[in-house]
């Protein structure tokens, strides 16, 4: 029987090098897979090189990382408290819609800076409110947060579709107005915002009393409660923080590259990618920030592959291989495979 045996203490450098080796192996496998689709090696490698060297692809990576990082970074603190919410998907959508309302429908007059700041806070507030609802269901009615957050995502999807096809509809097609140009942000601003959230979360997690309480509660809830850390307060705190962060991710999506919404764009999956990234980064906000860029780059690489004629199924397979290889490498760095 195969089993995994812990290697004991592994240095951070070994983990980084191991992960990079896994990513390299993943890309190699991805290239081999896409070759099977009948596309030339030059074209496949060209897409790969283009992804990481061209300014337009890098701009896309940075822009796309906004909602993914916003979701993932916030989720790291929630998952550390073993509050396994997946509401980030709904929080990104809700954040995006409220920003669209503020900037394109509300009629409020404001400058670009005010619009930008207000967008971040309003979207964060909406995301946090959704998080509050999930936490309330858990704390007061003992509802499993995975189920409730999943259901809330579907409710938000339905409501978003209604808004897009109803009150926000412009002309004959179910498509909304666009965010006015003066409020749109440069792709360079997006990692700056997510970087600031990362820094704040890092301080909160590793330097604050709340971080102590979250860490203790996640690993030993009874110990945390016994020594004075109120579980309800911890759950509400992480739900609000993760919700705020994902909501801001929605704002960055809208301000950075989405600009308008249609039913097709309502469920982009960035929130769910955030869930994956949070796990991939072992719930470390700094690692989540970097992993978000990595996942965005894979998404951009996938789009370029499609543009060069690789069928979608192959593209998805290649993306999965890269992520799986990275995860496998991280596992193999920490554990050795043994045979019993």
């Amino acid at each position, binding site marked *: 029987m195969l089993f995994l*045996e*812990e290697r004991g203490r592994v240095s951070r450098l070994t983990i980084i090098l191991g992960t990079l080796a896994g990513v390299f192996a993943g890309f190699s496998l991805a290239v081999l897979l896409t070759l099977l689709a009948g596309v030339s090696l030059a074209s496949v490698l060209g897409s790969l090189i283009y992804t990481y060297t061209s300014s337009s692809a890098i701009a896309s990576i940075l822009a796309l990382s906004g909602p993914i990082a916003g979701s993932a970074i916030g989720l790291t603190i929630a998952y550390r408290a073993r509050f396994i919410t997946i509401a980030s998907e709904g929080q990104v959508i809700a954040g995006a819609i409220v920003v669209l309302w503020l900037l394109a429908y509300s009629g409020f007059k404001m400058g670009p800076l005010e619009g930008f700041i207000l967008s971040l806070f309003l979207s964060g507030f909406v995301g946090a409110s959704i998080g509050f609802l999930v936490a309330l269901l858990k704390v007061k009615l003992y509802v499993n947060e995975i189920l409730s957050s999943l259901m809330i995502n579907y409710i938000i999807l339905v409501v978003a579709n209604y808004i897009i096809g109803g009150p926000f509809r412009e002309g004959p097609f179910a498509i909304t107005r666009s965010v006015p140009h003066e409020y749109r942000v440069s792709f360079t601003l997006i990692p700056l915002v997510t970087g600031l959230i990362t820094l704040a979360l890092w*301080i909160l997690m590793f*330097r*604050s*009393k709340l*971080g*102590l*309480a979250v*860490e*203790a509660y996640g*690993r*030993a809830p*009874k*110990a*945390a*409660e*016994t*020594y*004075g*850390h*109120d579980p309800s307060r911890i759950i509400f705190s992480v739900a609000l923080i993760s919700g705020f962060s994902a909501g801001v991710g929605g704002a960055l999506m809208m301000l950075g590259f989405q600009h308008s919404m249609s039913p097709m764009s309502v469920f982009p999956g960035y929130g769910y990618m955030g869930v994956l990234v949070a796990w991939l980064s072992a719930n470390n906000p700094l690692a989540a920030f970097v992993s978000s860029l990595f996942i965005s780059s894979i998404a951009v690489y996938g789009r370029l592959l499609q543009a060069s004629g690789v069928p979608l199924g192959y593209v998805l397979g290649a993306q999965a291989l890269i992520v799986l290889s990275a995860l496998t490498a991280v596992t193999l760095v920490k554990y050795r495979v043994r045979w019993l």
Partner: protein
Amino acid sequence: MIIVAEREPILEARGITVVYPNGVVANVDVNFKVYEGEIVALLGENGAGKSTLVRAVAGIVRPNKGEVYFQGRKVVINNYSEALKLGIYLVSQNPHVFETLTVAEDVGLTLSRAGFKVKLRDVEKLLASASLEYDVKVSPHELGWGLSMGEKQRVEIAKALLLNSKVIMLDEPTTHLTPMETSSLLGMLRRLTGKGKGIVFITHKIGEAMNVADRIVVMRGGRVTGEFNAGSVTRESLLEAMFGAGNVNFEGGVKSPPLKEGDGRATLIDVEDLWVLEHGVPRVKGVTFSVREGEIVGVAGVAGNGQRELFEALIGLRKPARGRVRISGVDVTSLGPGERVKRGLAVIPEEKLGWALVPGLSVKFNVAFALASVNSGLGFLVNWSKVDRIAREVIGLTKVKVAGGDVPVDSLSGGNMQRLIVARELFRKPKIVIAMNPTGGLDYATSVEVRKLIVKASGEGTGFLIISEDLGELLEISDRIIVMSRGSLKGGFGRPFNFDSIAKSMAD
């Protein structure tokens, strides 16, 4: 003194070495024999390798090296079922009796595991005959959940007898028993030796080993460090074998000066008519008591008589159905643990990792997280250099053997974990400490150390409520003992304690 027996042993382990996958060396070249009609005590402190040895012999742990001989024949025991078939039975510290099965069904399952095909009706008959032959009384129709720990042990012994086991090994069998149940068990074991059975009795209690056994084998650090005739060995020789020459403080015991009634000491915790329910069933019934400044009050009783529920209600983890809890006169009944801790309550739970300590994190973190909720001056942003300093002070309070605050708490031994917990809780100068089995599972030296800390703190005015299954410990350090039985308090006892009266109350 080494005993040389000319008889053939029923069971012999030669050169057993066990190294666990995580690198822990549990047994090193251990030789061990069990003879017909004897009780051999396997004595040693926690982590000495006693349980590993019997588990290796019973096929539960696979030794890396060594051989097992049964009735003169070399045997390879691959799993516990094979041990059962051979005639080796291991009664673990928490007997494996299914809660939802009747005794007869449970026994039937074990018999079938050992390869016997019997009908339920026949099991009942077999149990009745074993009861007559060996005087091991069990009720075949009783459900597992309704059995006391002593009854569960009897069921296990009955299984061993029905399997015609030649060697019965009992791992710390008296841990959860009342003094009366203990004496009944010992009588039963003596009767079994009369029928030719070989009994292995694992214990870390020296007195118990001397009382029970014919022969005592002492282990330390995974090795056998001495083999003695129980009739002639001295306590000092056993201590030396257990801890090594020069490592033993033979003064060991700690006495608390008795407090006088009406000496003006303030009441620190005051519990009035406390009722605690579990799934609608009362587990604590109208308990009333108080603890004063500098007083150590012991709560004696057999495990499962409502002590855990009382403990959890007092620290605020459970809401009582009725009654009042006051700390320094302030009603805290409806307050959670955090508010109680802020009012001067310190908690020493029974389980170290997961309840008192956060696994996977450093010693430093484990000091900080418990102090963060009280006014420890750590601030919103934790000052880790200050935490470092506090951690060093906490470590310095006791003899916690640890390289530094960054060491993972899981890597500490059970004794060092307990020292850390006690030191951490006493560091913030609490008014009242509520502790549950504070020395449970600890070796002799650490138990003495922990008791000394408790007595010293009580001398400085801290009140203690100690819920313990170890009556000897309570007799040693308490000013007063109250006995808990079936959820109620059965009388209070002051010094000088009358052991028989307390033991009788525990069995009520």
